[in-house]
């Protein structure tokens, strides 16, 4: 009885989804993603990568050590910056980045949704994911540094091009299932009618667009080291820099969760039960694992590709990714018309 109450308490959606999965889970995934990125790149590059911090864990503790360093490092606030914006934006970025989780259902049961209705959840979640880049532009502007301004300018170019593709491609499942309800989309994919298989074009477009718009490593055009030092984050140090950097990883993770839900079948092939454990915690963990795999594949690409030039990236967005997304959308409509899903 007591145990059940505790379970229900943990499964209280704002607590489980936003606090535990959102903050702790996202933090953990960000840590694992950074670690995996370093380890995977190291393997491809014939190195060992992080090792001595904890040889048995494959050097995972180096990420913890890094975090401790970021937290305890002095935060330098240059005199030329716009102080309020400079200090508040990194925090706002993190909050806004986590926000889409409030509209993402990780269980088919209404009881475990963070908000009462999931009718337009996909639209709202996607709309919220487009917010953080705007704050990145603010961030660069507040820094009052040439490299920051160039970096945030690039960020704004890249998001203009790729957010559109990302939104279009991720909306393709909505077109094929005729619903913006994520729960409905996931249920439609049960058990293995995953849209990534039925509609690989849209999936590829979504993957590419997410990679680009979250400036994942090989495509970190806004913060590419060799021209603009660290882009919008040049003036940041210590915990504020960690918030910015972690924000990027968490944003990619949120996108990955959406992709896992709408393309990779969400909690499929598992059929959730009714009680908190089988109805909420297990399905959400399945989604988490699928999202992690998406993030890890993105991390692997770091080792193989170089960096696109800004104009080439934009060119690729309009000429390659956008048609791909439109084709995916068209294919979704055909899927819907032929009742394939």
């Amino acid at each position, binding site marked *: 009885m007591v145990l059940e109450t505790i379970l229900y308490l943990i499964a209280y959606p704002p607590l489980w989804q936003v606090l535990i999965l959102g903050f702790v889970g996202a933090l953990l995934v960000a840590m694992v993603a950074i670690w995996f990125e370093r380890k995977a790149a190291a393997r*491809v*590059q*014939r190195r060992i990568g992080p090792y001595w911090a904890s040889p048995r864990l494959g050097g995972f503790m180096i990420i913890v050590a890094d975090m401790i360093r970021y937290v305890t490092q002095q935060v330098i606030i240059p005199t030329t910056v716009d102080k309020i914006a400079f200090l508040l934006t990194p925090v706002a970025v993190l909050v806004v980045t986590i926000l889409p989780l409030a509209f993402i259902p990780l269980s088919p049961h209404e009881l475990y949704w963070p908000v009462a209705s999931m009718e337009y959840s996909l639209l709202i979640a996607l709309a919220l994911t487009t917010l953080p880049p705007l704050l990145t532009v603010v961030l660069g502007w507040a820094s009052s540094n040439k490299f920051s301004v160039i970096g945030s300018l690039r960020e704004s170019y890249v998001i203009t091009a790729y957010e559109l593709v990302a939104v279009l491609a991720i909306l393709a499942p909505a077109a094929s299932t005729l619903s913006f309800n994520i729960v409905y989309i996931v249920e439609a994919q049960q058990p293995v009618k995953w849209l990534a298989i039925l509609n690989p074009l849209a999936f590829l477009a979504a993957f590419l667009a997410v990679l680009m718009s979250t400036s994942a490593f090989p495509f970190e055009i806004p913060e590419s*080291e060799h021209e603009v*030092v660290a882009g919008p984050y040049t003036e940041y140090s210590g915990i504020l820099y960690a918030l910015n950097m972690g924000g990027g990883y968490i944003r990619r993770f949120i996108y990955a969760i959406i992709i896992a839900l709408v393309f990779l079948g969400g909690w499929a092939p598992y059929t959730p039960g009714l009680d908190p454990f089988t109805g909420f915690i297990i399905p959400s963990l399945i989604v988490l694992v699928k999202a992690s795999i998406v993030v890890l594949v993105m991390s692997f690409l770091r080792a*193989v590709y*170089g*960096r696109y*030039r800004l104009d080439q990236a934009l060119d690729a967005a309009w000429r390659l990714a956008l048609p791909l997304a439109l084709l995916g959308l068209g294919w979704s409509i055909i899927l819907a018309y032929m009742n394939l899903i």
Partner: protein
Amino acid sequence: MEGQKLQGMVVRRVEKELYEVFIGPQHPGSGHMRIIVRLDGDVIVEADPDIGYVHRTMEKLSEVREWLKPIPLLERMTIIDACNITVPYVNALEKLMDKSPPPRASYLRVLLCEINRVASHLYGFGIFGVFLGHSTMYMWAFGDREVFVELAEILTGARLTHSYPIPGGVRRDMPQDFPEMARRAVRYMRGRLEEYRRIFVDNPVIVKRLEGVGVISRNKAAELGIVGPNVRASGIRYDVRLAEPYEVYDELDFEIPVFEEGDALARTWVRVEEIKQSLSIIEQAVDWLERHKGEPIIPKEDYDKLPKLHREVYEKTGRVKLLPAHATMKIPAGKAIARGEMGRGEIIYYVESDGGTTPYRVRVVTPSARNAIVFKYIVPGHRLMDLPAIYGSIDYFPPEADR
């Protein structure tokens, strides 16, 4: 204020629409130099290379050291290409002393030069890779360079600062198991070049970054006087090993790859092809050295002067001992010019002796010093993100240019 001259500076008004960005010297993508870039939007309208941050007065320091001592000093201009940069200096001394190295010593020099050339190109590839955000190329190139650094270490006893040639010969003979090791390294590197092609040179993203970027036309290349792989990528058939063969380069069978496109991709391919040719030269050199075992590596007249202990050491370990006279060696008065082809291009030495124990004048013109001009004339008109691509593709090395 406009055009007004202060001491050593020119004050000039910056256009209001232009954005002036200082790339370097405290910048992750600049190396030991500064490039002042003026941007109109994302397009560079003016680039001003500001060199000299690592000027170490190599020429002046050479003048106050006895003849042998500049060898380890001059190496430090391009520590990654140490033999190539010292061989022409030694050649100049040999011209003044009217001495010529025995063929085996020449072959050993060429062997080490080509090992250095491969290592130097791989170093260039590594830096190029990291400039383009391709961290794998960086790590691979540096890892594979280690193979050749290891070979050089076995041959000379030092990883980078070999101080290998001395006037009249070389300091050490090759160890017994060296040829087999060199052949294995050559075969390994050939296999690796194919993988480099797949992950880097033919990688669509990289090709896109390089194709048509930083085009130096044939005329422009001649006009700017750039050298090395950069000029060969623009269709000019110029290589010192071809124009004025030094050492035994005229006895070896190798090609000088020339491309005509003149863009960053062509420059990359020239280096890939040159690595292939260097590997073939290494093979030929070790073959020759194996066929001519036991030949001297210093001139006979020098060998005859050696005392008994020195000869014993030479027979046993292949190490040529210097005579105490070397420390205060005098070189007949005269002037000599010698040139050689380094990994990055042509190096020229002008050495003047007044008959004393130290050089009267040593003038060095290094390839990077001649290539630095590319920043000024080729970079404008490109985008800011092309700057690292051009920088990496001309393989500019500031310590070499600043001397």
